[in-house]
Every structure is written in structure tokens, then in C-alpha cells.
């Protein structure tokens, strides 16, 4: 099998060095960079901006939940199974509010969970970064940065040198 490169992985000493490297690479117009850290680092997320449509998806799902509940309750209470309680109106909307609220929350919560996993393309049991044994530290105390081969500026030799110049403590080539 021909060894097609996925990218170059570099490990850094700590969050400060990792953020510095990410900012430097961005300043040199690298665009396909991903950082791997054992906990969320907000400064890093700002340094590596990506579109995040999750809030919009969750909001839409919440509205859908409210609409579903209202339509279901109205249809059942008025047409499907009307119950006359002492001549009170069939369309007794104030008593529909509770279930509308509950389904809003339910739909939004399911969308938040499913949305996170699908936008993150998970589950993905195998990924090129896992080929490096040292990468196990990414969930413990390791701070990694990967420049992906699809980056227009990517060049195996030059990228590797750039990462080493940024004081990476380890650099690996990742095969696809």
C-alpha cells in the first residue's frame, strides 16, 4: 500500500507552547490545522476558528418540539378524541403549555446530543492520529497539533521544519 500522508503531528510541552504554535502557523497562512488536547482550551478554539452551527440546530429542534406538541394536543383534544368536561372548551390551550415545554426541551436535548456527534463525525473508531503510540497521552497530559496534508501550503519537509522550529518535543508523519 502506498503511504499517502494524512498530515504531520507534533507534540508540545504544554498549553502555552501549543497555543503559540497554532497562532504562528495561522499567521503563516496554514489553514487545515487541528489541535488535540486533554481538556478544552478556549484560546485555542479562537486561534483555530471553525463554523459552529450547533446552537442554530438546537434552537430549530426546540421550535419543532413545541410545534409537534401543540399540533398533537390540539388535534387529539379537538378532533381525534374530544372529551366534554362540563362544557369547557375543547381547545383548552393553557393546559397544553406543560407538554409543549417538555417536548421543546426533549427535542432540543436530543438534537444537542446527536448534533454534537454528527458534526464531529463521530463515531469514528479509527483515525490516522491513533497510529502514533504517544498519542495516547492526548487524553491524559499531552498537547498535540496536526497540520493536515490537504492544506495548500503543506509540504512534508518544510512543515516538519516549521513545527520543529516552534519547539515541538516530538514530530511524526501520519499515514492515511
Amino acid at each position, binding site marked *: 500500500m502506498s503511504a499517502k500522508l494524512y498530515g504531520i503531528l507534533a507534540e508540545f510541552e504544554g498549553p502555552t507552547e501549543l497555543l503559540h504554535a497554532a497562532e504562528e502557523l495561522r499567521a503563516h497562512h496554514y489553514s487545515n490545522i487541528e489541535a488535540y488536547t486533554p*481538556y478544552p482550551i478556549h484560546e485555542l478554539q479562537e486561534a483555530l476558528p471553525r463554523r459552529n452551527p450547533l446552537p442554530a440546530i438546537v434552537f430549530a429542534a426546540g421550535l419543532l418540539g413545541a410545534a409537534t406538541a401543540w399540533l398533537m394536543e390540539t388535534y387529539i383534544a379537538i378532533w381525534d378524541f374530544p372529551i366534554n368536561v362540563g362544557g369547557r372548551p375543547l381547545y383548552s390551550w393553557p393546559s397544553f403549555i406543560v407538554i409543549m415545554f417538555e417536548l421543546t426541551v426533549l427535542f432540543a436535548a436530543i438534537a444537542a446530543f446527536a448534533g454534537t456527534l454528527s458534526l464531529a463525525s463521530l*463515531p469514528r473508531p479509527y483515525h490516522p492520529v491513533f497510529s502514533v503510540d504517544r498519542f495516547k*497521552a492526548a487524553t491524559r*497530559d499531552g498537547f498535540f497539533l496536526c497540520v493536515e496534508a490537504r492544506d495548500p501550503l503543506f509540504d512534508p519537509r518544510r512543515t516538519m521544519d516549521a513545527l520543529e522550529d516552534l519547539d515541538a518535543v516530538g514530530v511524526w508523519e501520519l499515514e492515511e
Partner: protein
Amino acid sequence: MPVDRDVENRVTALDDLQRRSHRKPDPGDVPIVIAPAQSFASITDQISGFVLTRKVPTLWWVALVIGVVASINLLIAVTILFYKGVGMFGIQIPVAWAFAITNFVWWIGIGHAGTLISAFLLLMHQSWRSSINRLAEAMTIFAVMCAGLFPILHLGRPWVFYWLIPYPNTMTVQPQFRSPLVWDIFAVSTYFTLSLLFWYLGMIPDLATLRDKAKNRFVQRFYAIACWGWRGASHHWRLHDTACLLLAGLATPLVVSVHTVVSFDFTISILPGWHTTIFPPYFVAGAIFSGFAMVLILAIPIRSVYGLQNLLTERHLNNCAKLMLATGLIVAYTYALEPFTAWYGGDRFEMDIVHNRAVGPYAWTYWTVLLCNIAIPQLLWLRSFRIRPKRLFFVSAVILYGMWLERYMIIVSSLNRDFIPSSWAQFAATAVDNAVLYGSIGFFLLCFALFVRFLPMIPMSEVRELLPFSRPGGGSEK
């Protein structure tokens, strides 16, 4: 792991130093919520060690055995109940709701403190919550599981419980959406689903840690599947953080709404003693009150058995105790308000219920409730009762018992004497009643023991964030 006295002393010393300095913390200050001199690696190894080791504390085995025995007991009681019918409970007319509904309200209330910690305190940027968060959320899920059992056991024909859910059926019958009992189905199932998703989503990065640290191939596979291939990419963290924040935002109104809906089961009826507008806030405050008691009952032994004094510090006990005291005072206020509204409303039957509660056949429950939920919790004004584990454990146990009895009092003492004296009757619990109550506690204990053994009980990724050098420019770990 032995109890690390040294760590405990250091945390206490630091806490004292911070208190004595009388300095307002700067906005940039990292609050001291975990013990100093820890690293990313030491925290990870400590917490993942509880799962990946073969050594298990003796107390864990004790909890497991009690849990299994009580769960078998529950199973037998439920089998008898389903075989013979709901009359195996001590219920009759007029006391048609008794243990089952008391247990339901009690368990679901316990869950609320977990959601308060995981959702509300997250939105309030209370970073101390991180280390107690996962335990509290697990408690919520298992408590809601126990709670969900009881309305089903209490049905005349429990095998058709799904008739409560609207679905197109050949009987062409649908639920009545004006009934709070139908609202309750939606409230409780939404609450359970959201809690489960929130808990699991927060756990994914920690499951990845366990995958990477496991030596055994089978164990590794298990956590690899459970963590969905998490690799800690910064874009994934962004999505994860956003989702957690959104779920927290969605869960926060649930802290208030679920028990409000539960209280509607009572208030929307016209029974004196139930038909009152104070019930929703009364129930919510009581729920959080009892929930914090359960959090502490679980956290205090776990903390000492697993040597977690470096992560669950005195500050955590203190904060939980303060929240318990505050919600307890709200509960005390509503206790005072109940007779007042009855008197001010001037309704003959409402006044009779107040009288019946204080001097009637169930007077002992009323006075015990006042003792357990108002008098004894006042000990929490003393600092030693907030930070000494044994004393706090005692107060929490008293509150937990008091809150169960409070729901029993509300239900039984209101029902046993209704409008016509000829229909008055007393309630007496049967063996099945007791077996189901203690069985559910055992089932909860069993679930919790399994959780502590197989899942990371403290969120490692969140605790890493609490370390002073976790932010870029925050200094070096070495």
C-alpha cells in the same frame, strides 16, 4: 487507597489562609477548589485507577451485596404485587395514594440536586462543582429510574402502562391533556432522557482516557466503543462545550419544572391540604433540600474510602451544606405559610386538615417532620457541622428521612380524613409496601456501586481545567 491526611491538612490550611486574608478575590484568581501540587497526569491516574484496578475497597463489596439482596427483595415484592394486584399495598379508599406515590415524589426530588449541580451551577460559573458533578448526575439518573418505577407499580394494570402515552391505537382512545397525570409522564420521561444524554455526553472524553489507559484488550474495546472514538480535537471540544452549555440551559428550567408538575398532581385536585398555590415552590425547594442530603450521603463515604480529599475538599462539603441550609429555610417558610393560608382563606375543611395534621392520628409524622427538616438542619449554621464529614452525614441522613416523611404526611394525612366522616379510614403499610421502598433504595445502591466501579466518577477533563497551569500563559506544570 489510604486516606491521605496530609492532603486534607494542606487543603484546610489553604482554605484558612484564603478566609483570613479578608481580600476580595480578583477576577483572574483561580479559586482553590482542589488541593495544590497535582498535575494532569496525577489526577488522570488517580481517577482512572479506581476503574482500571483489580483492587476494590471492602465497603464497595458491602454496598454491592446489600444492593443485590435488596434488589432481589424488590423483584419478589413486585412479582407478588403483579400476581395478586395493587391491593397488596396497604391502600384503600380514601387513602388510595400512599407509599408508592410518596416514594415517587421522594426519589424524583432527590434527582433535582444533581441537575442543579450539573446545569445551574455550570451556567453560574461555579467551578467548584466540577469534581462533584459526575457523582451528582449519576445520582439523578438512578433516582429518576427508581422514581419512574412507582407510578407504574401503582397502576391497577401495570402491563398496559403505555396507554398513558398518546399513540395511534385500535381502541381509538387518547390521553386527556388537561390532566396533570399525563403532564407528569412527559415531564419525567423528558427529565430522564435529558439527564442521561447530558451525563453521557460529559463522560465521553473521560471514557476515551480509560480507553487509552486500559491494559486489558477487552476493557480497551469496551471503552473504545463507549467513547465513540473521541480524540480530543479542538473542534470537537468546541462542539462538546457548546452542547454541554446548551444542555445546561435546557436542564435548568427542568430543575424547577419537573417537581412543579409533580406538585400539580396534588394541587389540581380539590382535596384540602393539597389544593394550594404554595405547592410548586414548596416541592421544588424540598426536592433540592433532600437532593443535596443524598449527594452528601453518597459523597462523604466515597471521599474517605477512595481517598478523594484532594478533589472533594472541605469547600465542597461546605458549599453543599450551605445550599442545603438555604433550601431548608425555604421549606421552613412554606411549613409556616401552610397553616397561615388555611386560616386566612377561612375554608372550614382546610382548617380541619391543619388541625388533623397537628393533633390527628398522624400527628407524630407532622412533629417528626418539623424536627427533621427544620430544627436539626439549623445545626448547619455551625461551621463544624458543615465541614466535619461525620456530623454532616448525620444531618443529611436526618433530612433525607424527614423529607420522605414529609411527603408521606402530605399524602396520607390529607387523604385519611376527607369531607365526610363516615368515609374516614387509617392507612397501614403492608410488607409489600416496605419491601418495595427498601428494595428501591437497594436498587439505587446497586446502580451506584456499579457506576463507581465501571465509570469515571469524577470528570477528569473538567478537573484538569481547574489546575492553575491549565490555561495558556498560566505557567508550566514542571
